[in-house]
C-alpha cells in the first residue's frame, strides 16, 4: 500500500486526490506539473483525480524565481 512520489516511497492513502497529496507533501509551489504513471494530470483536475495504489507520481516543480 504505497506510492512513489518523485522517486521517494510514501504511504498510499485511499481516496486521496492530487490536491490532497500536494498538501500532504507540503508542495505549496504553484508551478508544478503532475504526472501519474507518466500521464499528465491537468491542473484543473487536481481536486478530482485520485491517486491509485502503487502508482508512480512525478510532481515536477518548475524553476521559477531565481
Amino acid at each position: 500500500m504505497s506510492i512513489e512520489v518523485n522517486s521517494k516511497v510514501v504511504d498510499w492513502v485511499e481516496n486521496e486526490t492530487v490536491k490532497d497529496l500536494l498538501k500532504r507533501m507540503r508542495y505549496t509551489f504553484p508551478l508544478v506539473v503532475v504526472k501519474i504513471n507518466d500521464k499528465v494530470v491537468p491542473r484543473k483536475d487536481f481536486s478530482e483525480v485520485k491517486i491509485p495504489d502503487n502508482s508512480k507520481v512525478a510532481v515536477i516543480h518548475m524553476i521559477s524565481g531565481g
Partner: protein
Amino acid sequence: MVEGQLSIEEYETGNTKHKWDYKKLKLAHRVVFEYNYKKGKVQAGYTNRTLYINLTTNEIKEKKVTEEMKEKFTGGRGFGLKLLWDSIKHTTRWNSDENELVITTGPLCGTTQYPGSGKSLCLTVSPSTDIICDSNVGGFFGPYLKFAGFDALEIQGKAKYDVVIVIDGEKGKVIIETAPLEETNTHHLNEQLTKMYASEDTDKSRQKVSVISSGKGAENSYWGCLNFSFYDIRRKVPRIKQAGRGGLGSVLRDKKIKAIVTKVEKVSGISNNPADPITLAKIGTKLHREVRDLDRYQCNMRAVGTAHLVEIMDEYDLLPTENYRFGNFPKASKIYSPEFYKHFTKIIPDGCWHGCTMACSKTVDGFTVMTGPYKGQKVTVDGPEYETVACGANMSIWDPLWILEFNFYCDTYGLDTISTGTAIAFYMEMYEYGILNKERCNNLELCFGNSEAVLELIHRIARGDDGEFINVASKGIRRVKNWLIKNGWGEPNIIEDCGMESKGLEYSEYVTKESLAMQGGYGLTLKGPQHDEAWLIFMDMVNNAIPTFKDKAEALHYFPMWRTWFGLNGLCKLPWNDIEPANNAETDDPTKVPEHVQNYVDYQKAMTGKKITKEDLILQSERCYNWQRAMNVWMGRGRRKDDWIPYRSMGPVTEMEYLSRKDRYDKYLAEKIGLFEKEIEKMNINEKMKLLYNFRQDQYQKLADAVYFRRGWTPNGVPTPQKMKQLGMNDHIMLKFLQDVIDKDDKAGLNVWGGKYRKGEEPPSIQPKYWEKW
C-alpha cells in the same frame, strides 16, 4: 478598479515635494570636454557602434561594431567582454586607471512588443572578486543608450572632480561636465538630474531621460550598486532598478562619476528597426495574453513581484535565516508576500521597461523614512524583491516596515542589498560566538535581530566613518574573514565555513545544503555565487530529476548557457519561466518551457533577419561563457581552487544545525554513506558531522569534475584551446595563453580529477589529456 483600492489621485507617491534651486545647481556645472556625433539609425537591433570615453585623457571616440564581433559575441554581456579584453590588462584591479565600466544593450534590448526586453548588462573588474563581474538591470537607460546611437558605453580612466556624463540623443552630443552641488545619493540626485536634463518641464519630457547613479555607501564600500532610473509618468517620480552585484557602483564613484544621463528624441515600437516586425508583434502578443490570463494562477508576479517566493522558500526549507543556518523560521510568516502586498501601490502598472506586462517591479509609495539623514521624508521605495526580504530573514529581522527602510537606504546609498544583508548576517553570527563583540564592532551590538544596529552600520558606512570595523566590514565577508584570522579571533575553520562568500562575492539568498547541483550553481560560476546562472534546487532536491553527477553536470551546462543568452540580448529572464503556457505540462521537457524557447528563436530571427535555430542560441552563449572563464584564468582566478565554496552551503557547520535536522542527516548517513542504523546510534555528533563533512566535500569535487568535463575544460577547470576552436573563438593570443596555462598545470600535477573515486566509481574520463582528442 478593484473594490477597496484607492484612486490614483489619492496615492502619495513620494519624492515629489522637494524644491531644488536648479539655476544654482546648473550654474555650478562646468563643461570639461565634449563630442559631437552623427545621429544614426538602429538596424535590425544594432547601432553598429559603441561609445568610448576616457576620463583621464579627456578622449571620446566611436568604435565600430564589426560583423565578426556580432557573430562571436552577439551583443550585451558578450560585447562587454570583448571591449574589456581589448582594453584592460590581466593585472587590472577595480581601482586601476585602466579599469572600465561598460554598459551594454543587446540586439533585442529596447523592443516594446515582447515582455522583458529592456535590460542592460553592466561589466567591470570587481572590487570584491578581482575578476570581471556582470550584472543585469532594468530601467530605461539601456534602450535609450541604443536609441541615442550606441550598442555599448565604455568608460575608462578617472575624473579629477565629480562629473556627470550626458549622452544627448536629441542633439547628437556627449558632454562631460562637473556637478559639484548635486546630492550623491540616488533618490535626490535622480530627481534633480531628471528634471534638469529634460528638454521641457513636462512629464513626457522627463520620461525621455534616464540616469545611472549610485550613492555615498558605494563610495565607502565594495558593495556599490548602479541604480538605473525610469521615470514613472503616473507617479511623477523617477523610479529605479539595480545592477547590484560585484561593486559596479563602487567603480562608478571611484571614477568620480556622479551620474550618467542619457536622453532620447523618441521611442516607438519600431525603434529597433526589426527585420520582420510582423512576426515580432505576433509572438509578443501571444506572450502578453499568457501573462494577462495565467499569471494570477501561477506566480502572481503582477501583484507581488518576486516577493511571492518568500513563503515558498520558507515552506521548502530554503529561506536563509540566521546566516543560512536554517531554511525556515517560525516568525517567517510575518514577512510573507501578503504583508508587503498591503503596502504596494496597486493600480499602477509596474513594468521596468515599456511593454513588460509581467510588471513585477513593485513599489511602496509614500513611505515615511524612520531613521538616518532622510528621517521623516516621504519616499517611493522600489521593491522589495525576494532577495531583499530574504536578507531580513538572514539577519533574523522579521519586520516588513524595517525591510522597506533597509531597501530604501541600500538603494539611495547605492548599496547592493544582497551583499550587504549576507555580509551582516555573517558578522552577526560571529558576534554570537564572541568572535566579534561590541568593542571590536566600533560600539555596535551586532547580534541577530538587532535592526537598529544594522541601520546604524549602514548609515556609518555612508558617512565614511573611519572605525576599523566599519571600514573592513564594508569591504565584505572575504576581507572580514582575513581580518579576524589575522587578529587570531576565533577558529579559522569556523570563520571560513560560516562566511557565505565564494570568489570574494557574497551569496544570494537560498539555502543549498540539500542540493548538490545548486552548490555547483553557486560555486561553478563565472562571477561568483549569484543564482542567475542556474537555479536547480527544485529540479535536484524536490523533483529528484537529476540524480547522477552526469545529470547534474548536464543541467549545469545547459541552464547557465541558456540563461547567459538573455544577457547577450538585453532581455529579462523572468518572462521565460515565471509564466508558462497552459499546455506546458504536456511538453517533453516542461522545465525548459519549450514553447518560450521557440519564441526566443523566432524573436532573434525576426529582429536580426538571420537564420537561427535553438542550438544556435546555446552556441552564442557558449562562446561568451567560455571566453569569460578564459578571462578569469587570465586574471589569475579561474581554476578549481577558485571554485571553492564555504561548507555552510554544503552542510551543517555547527552542532545546533545538525541537531535541528537530525533525522534528515542521520537518514543521509544511512542512505548515501551506507551506515547501519546501529552504527549511527553509537556515533557521537562530532563523529557524524565529520563523516558528513568529508563525504559532502568529496561530492562537490566529483560534481566539479563532471561539470568541467561537460563544459570542455581541463580537470583544473581551464577552458581548452580545442574547445575554444570548436566554438569558433580563434583569438590566437587567448589560445596560446590557455595552452601555456594547461602545460604549467600539467607540470605542477594539477590536471587531475578532484574527487576520490572508489571501487566501482569512475571519473568522467580515464584518458589523460582527453581534450586533445576532440
